[in-house]
Each structure stands twice: as C-alpha cells, then as structure tokens.
C-alpha cells in the first residue's frame, strides 16, 4: 500500500481550464512538498508546506495542506501547455529526519493547446 496516494493518476485538459490534484495519506506528516518532473529529468521543487491548514500561492498554482497534516491539494488556474508534466507530492513523516521523503506515484498532467 502506498503511503501517499495521488489522484487522479492521469489528467488531460484543454488550455485555460482549471484543475485540482490530490495527495492523501492516513499518516501525519511534518511537512509536505510538491514537485514537478519532466521526462528524463529530476523533480523540481515547487513548494513546501509545514503547518496544518496552510495555503500557499505560486502564480497560478495554489497549494493547501490539510488541517490534520495528512493530505494536500494542488490547484492550477487557467492551465497552460507549459504546465504539462508529472506532479509529485512527497512528505516527511513525523519522527523522521528531514531529507527522508516518501513520494507518491504522481499525477501526469497533459495540457492541450
């Protein structure tokens, strides 16, 4: 069983649409990160959230950490083809050292022009 479940696994939308992807767990996390990864490259860090209920905005991207620190969501407004990629969430379980991150299997997003 995956510690972090991401949904949906695949998402294909038209340019200009809004979307939300989810990252859920039954475990509590000290922090949670969102990454974007393109084929053949390493993940690129988008944001880190550490406080339950925290909301962070990065241009058209809005990240939310659940009140209980067990889940998170990523909302993209007016998606663009450049948003295409694999979106990964990763968390640090309570009691583990920073740097030992558990990853979900990601949501593959395709934005069609």
């Amino acid at each position, binding site marked *: 069983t995956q510690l972090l479940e991401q949904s949906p696994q695949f998402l294909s939308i038209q340019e200009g649409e809004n979307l939300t992807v989810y990252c859920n767990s039954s475990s509590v996390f000290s922090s949670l990160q969102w990454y974007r990864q393109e084929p*053949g*490259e*390493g993940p690129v860090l988008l944001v880190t959230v*550490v406080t339950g209920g925290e909301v962070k905005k990065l241009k058209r991207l809005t990240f939310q950490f659940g009140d209980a620190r067990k889940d998170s969501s990523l909302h993209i407004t007016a998606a663009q083809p450049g948003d295409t990629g694999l979106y*990964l969430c*990763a968390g640090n379980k309570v009691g583990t050292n920073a*740097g*030992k*991150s558990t990853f979900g299997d990601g949501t593959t997003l395709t934005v069609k022009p």
Partner: protein
Amino acid sequence: DAGVTQSPTHLIKTRGQQVTLRCSPKSGHDTVSWYQQALGQGPQFIFQYYEEEERQRGNFPDRFSGHQFPNYSSELNVNALLLGDSALYLCASSLTSTYEQYFGPGTRLTVT
C-alpha cells in the same frame, strides 16, 4: 551557483556487474540523499548521507552502498546488478535542518 550535478547521464551494464554513480550537491548543502525511480513510479528513498556517514536507509538490500566525501559529494554503488535495478537514480541535496531537497537530473541505469 551550480545546482546538483550527477554523472554519468546514462549507463548500460550487464547483470551481475557493479556500478558507481556520482553526485555533487548544490553549493552550501551538506546532506545528500539517493532515490531510485522506476518507470511510472515515484522516487523511492535509498539512503541519506550527512557528515560522511549513512544517517538513514530505506528498504534496499546491502548490495546498495554509498559514500560521502569531505567536500559533501557522494557516490552510490550497486553490486551484483539485477535486471530490476534498471531505473533513474536521483541524487538530492539539502541542508540537514531543512525539508527542501533539490534534485539532480539523474542517472539512467539500464541493466541487460
């Protein structure tokens, strides 16, 4: 300011052989973590090095070993390669007290 670098970019090995992958962390970072990413999956934590010692380890066999040098760079060694070891191997660097990790481009290992 150079980011995380890894070498080589691609590598093809035969089952049973040994391989060494290299990583240079982002300037100012003191902690290096290694991950294995199979096709269609998220990265899986292998181990983490800090102050030249293995600090944490994931569920990987002893065939996977590593080293960190005084300049914080790191190596990942895999012995007795299996077909299932074919994957993208990612190195991530961080400051030991922070959650943010910065990844290199990875080494694509193919075992035939």
